[in-house]
């Protein structure tokens, strides 16, 4: 009997035998329920049942929507491109498999887990219906949008993976398109209305945004045309991505001889990246004498240039907005928002770059060759830190200096308000500390994790997400336990408390990672990969080799 979509049926059988399939679903339900209890308790004092129900519904569905959006870039965006890099995609096409077999097989193989995780949240979303404030049909619409968004995100990931070879390119394209659709389309519509001084924003054009679809699923904003229009567009785009990927894939797996034009372009690109032979030799000579690994990590001269380009574009956008709305752009709040956006982007950039050298070289075996030389581990680590400094150092210094200027301007505007100063002080301090922690922890996780992207995710979770989680947990705990209000924190205390949490977490992970890097670098680097590294519950605070 011929099986329709043989890879799909195989992947479903494999997933059904995996314990993780069930545990991840259970774990997600527990997390969602924990978040539910947390929000419910934190609002216990000052909200009615229906208000709490609405808030719970909004928070949990918002988190689920974010998860559905991120899933594509995180899960499917490298699934086909990785096979291209490893040269294994061709083996599939040497069999009778068709493009759609591979595309759907990959979709199922990589997305079952995320689908189950999302579905596990749905029962929690239904609880607010019993609390009042949320209508059953509202839950139905939100569930529909969440499933549709997950499908869109995964399908776009598959599509961009099928046209890419480089993992970062595939992820950046997937994330970029999703970001554009979700936030960019509404922002363009709003910008268009503001630019032409229209009284209302053209909502009909926003149906191209899954974010708008999610927004209109809520009863207060629900309009059938907008909701179903957005849903239909996203669903259509998802299928279109899969169909196009199915057609493309059988034609892109083979290594093709480059045309003369292609070769010329490749050479030009190489010269851009590494310089001419003379430039390469001069650059190599100066850096190798300092530290061999320094040159190894810093030889791609486009990397720092791309960061400068990003900062330049951000500056140009800010300046354009300033020319258009001069008064608004000089508001202290705009300074804060600008700093938060730029700092967050740079932090994510460092988190994605720091694990790259060790992770990539460990996978290729090149790290082992390096370790067969007399280069000491501290020397290797120093070289990588120097390379990271070369990539990010001046950019971060310039951003920091600009933010100091913005802080001064904002303080003048706010008459040197102490609370405002504290906000800037905490933000800038944590910016620098986070960068250091991300760099060091990134190197350690690059060495341990199975892939560079997994390492980046683990680093972001520990340095950028964990402090917020702890902060809100403590705040909720204080709120609930401090019945007579004797321990209540004002905003300044809360900021200092957040700073303290951030410093403690960063110090812990930085010191532990550095200690482990120095002591266990050779041991870990010569293993294939550490199976214990990953999204573990019990090993979170124990970044040790096993």
């Amino acid at each position: 009997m011929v099986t329709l979509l043989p890879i799909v049926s195989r992947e479903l059988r494999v997933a059904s035998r995996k314990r993780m399939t069930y545990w991840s679903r259970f774990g997600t339900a527990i997390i969602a329920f924990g978040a539910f209890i947390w929000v419910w308790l934190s609002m216990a004092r000052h909200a009615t049942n229906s208000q709490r129900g609405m808030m719970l519904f909004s928070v949990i569905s918002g988190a689920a929507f974010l998860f559905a959006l991120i899933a594509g870039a995180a899960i499917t965006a490298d699934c086909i491109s990785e096979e291209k890099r490893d040269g294994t995609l061709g083996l599939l096409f040497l069999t009778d498999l068709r493009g759609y077999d591979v595309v759907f097989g990959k979709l199922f193989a990589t997305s079952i887990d995320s689908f189950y995780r999302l579905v596990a949240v749905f029962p929690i979303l239904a609880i607010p219906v019993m609390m009042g404030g949320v209508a059953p049909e509202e839950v139905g619409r939100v569930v529909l949008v969440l499933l549709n968004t997950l499908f869109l995100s995964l399908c776009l990931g598959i599509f961009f993976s099928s046209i890419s070879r480089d993992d970062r390119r595939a992820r950046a394209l997937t994330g970029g398109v999703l970001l554009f659709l979700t936030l960019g389309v509404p922002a363009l519509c709003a910008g268009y209305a503001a630019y032409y001084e229209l009284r209302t924003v053209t909502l009909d054009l926003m149906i191209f945004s899954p974010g708008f679809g999610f927004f209109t699923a809520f009863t207060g904003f629900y309009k059938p045309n907008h909701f179903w229009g957005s849903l239909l567009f996203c669903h259509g785009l998802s299928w279109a991505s899969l169909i196009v990927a199915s057609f493309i894939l059988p034609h892109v797996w083979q290594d093709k001889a480059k045309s003369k034009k292609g070769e010329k372009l490749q050479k030009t690109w190489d010269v851009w990246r590494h310089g001419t032979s003379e430039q390469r030799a001069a650059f190599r000579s100066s850096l190798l004498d300092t530290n061999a690994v320094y040159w190894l990590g810093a030889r791609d001269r486009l990397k720092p240039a791309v960061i400068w380009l990003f900062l330049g574009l951000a500056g140009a956008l800010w300046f354009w907005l300033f020319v258009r709305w001069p008064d608004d752009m000089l508001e202290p709040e705009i300074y804060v928002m600008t700093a938060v956006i730029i700092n967050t982007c740079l932090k994510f950039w460092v988190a994605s770059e720091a694990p790259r050298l060790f992770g990539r070289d460990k996978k290729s075996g090149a790290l082992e060759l390096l370790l067969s030389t007399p280069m000491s581990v501290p020397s290797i680590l120093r070289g990588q830190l120097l390379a990271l400094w070369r990539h990010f150092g001046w950019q971060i210094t310039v951003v920091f200096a600009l933010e100091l200027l913005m802080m001064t301007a904002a303080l003048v505007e706010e008459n040197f308000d102490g609370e405002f100063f504290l906000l800037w002080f905490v933000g800038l301090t944590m910016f620098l500390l986070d960068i250091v922690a991300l760099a060091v922890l990134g190197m350690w996780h690059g060495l341990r994790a199975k892939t560079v992207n997994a390492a980046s995710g683990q680093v972001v979770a520990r340095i950028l997400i964990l402090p917020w989680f702890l902060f809100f947990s403590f705040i909720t705990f204080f709120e609930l336990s401090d019945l007579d209000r004797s321990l209540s924190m004002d905003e300044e205390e809360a900021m200092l408390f957040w700073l303290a949490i951030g410093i403690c977490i960063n110090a812990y992970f930085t010191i532990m990672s550095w200690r482990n890097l120095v002591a266990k670098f050779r041991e870990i680097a010569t293993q294939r990969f550490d199976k214990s590294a990953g999204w573990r519950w019990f090993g979170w605070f124990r970044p040790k080799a096993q």
Partner: protein
Amino acid sequence: MAVEINPSVPAIQTYELSRHYGAMTALSGLSLTVNRGDLFGFIGSNGAGKTTTLRILATFLTPSTGRAEVLGHDVVKDADAVRHIIGYMPDFFGVYKDMEVTEYLDFFAACYKIPSTQRDKTVADVLELVGLTEKKGALIGALSRGMQQRLGLARVLIHDPQVLLLDEPASGLDPRARIEMMAILQELQRLGKTIIISSHILSELQTLCNRVAIIERGKLIYAGPVQGVRDQMESGQIYWVTVQGDPHKAIELLKGHPEVAAAEQADGQVKVTLASHETDPGFLAETLVRGGVRITGLWENELGLEEVFLRVTKGETQ
């Protein structure tokens, strides 16, 4: 860093070397001596423990028990010194495909702390030695497998090590590339390097190596000259005789001789087993000629390394 070397110690010496991976024993009590200037073949089935031994010698793995020394330096206690005096080539390329050949070697030369004033010359010298001078500006990703393997060898030689540990250096190479690789290794031996080479291509090791070790399931079965293992295999000397006409007459003549243990027909020839290694085989021709048999050929049987390997091992893998 100049490493002190005692001229009286062998190139490599292991003492009861063992390595366990969980419940699996990869290496069990391996005691081995490799003399200076040896081109030493390391033979074994997949999973026999060859790579584990080489990785211990290259300081990547620490032995579970026992110890190993390279030119008198302990691979655990004195790992830094060992890294200066060995060149290790693993069974994978581990190259940076977007680097130029010269960049790659320049980088490793810097890792070995070769001063920048000497690096260009060193790189040019090793490229010439492995025959890659013409490819010095090429991207590594654009090189053929054979060229990449030569580049790996050039990397190993960049700091002029005294001991080379080569894990399957000829695997996956075409016949010409293999022959060229073997020629380079012979040249290196001539230059005084001690080379340990693990390989599955036994016919080449047979002509290339002066000494071999055979291991199976982590245990040493034989270590010594190639001829020695052949001698161990053969209880007596075997000769082959071809004659004109009926070979049975020759067999009858030879069977009656006290120095002949056995004579039989095989593949249209006469296979003669002498009773002792000490016996002079000259009597064979004399006996046959006197008996009126016309001899068309007479030669000594020589066991190939592949045959020896098959005989001494049981084909067990782990």
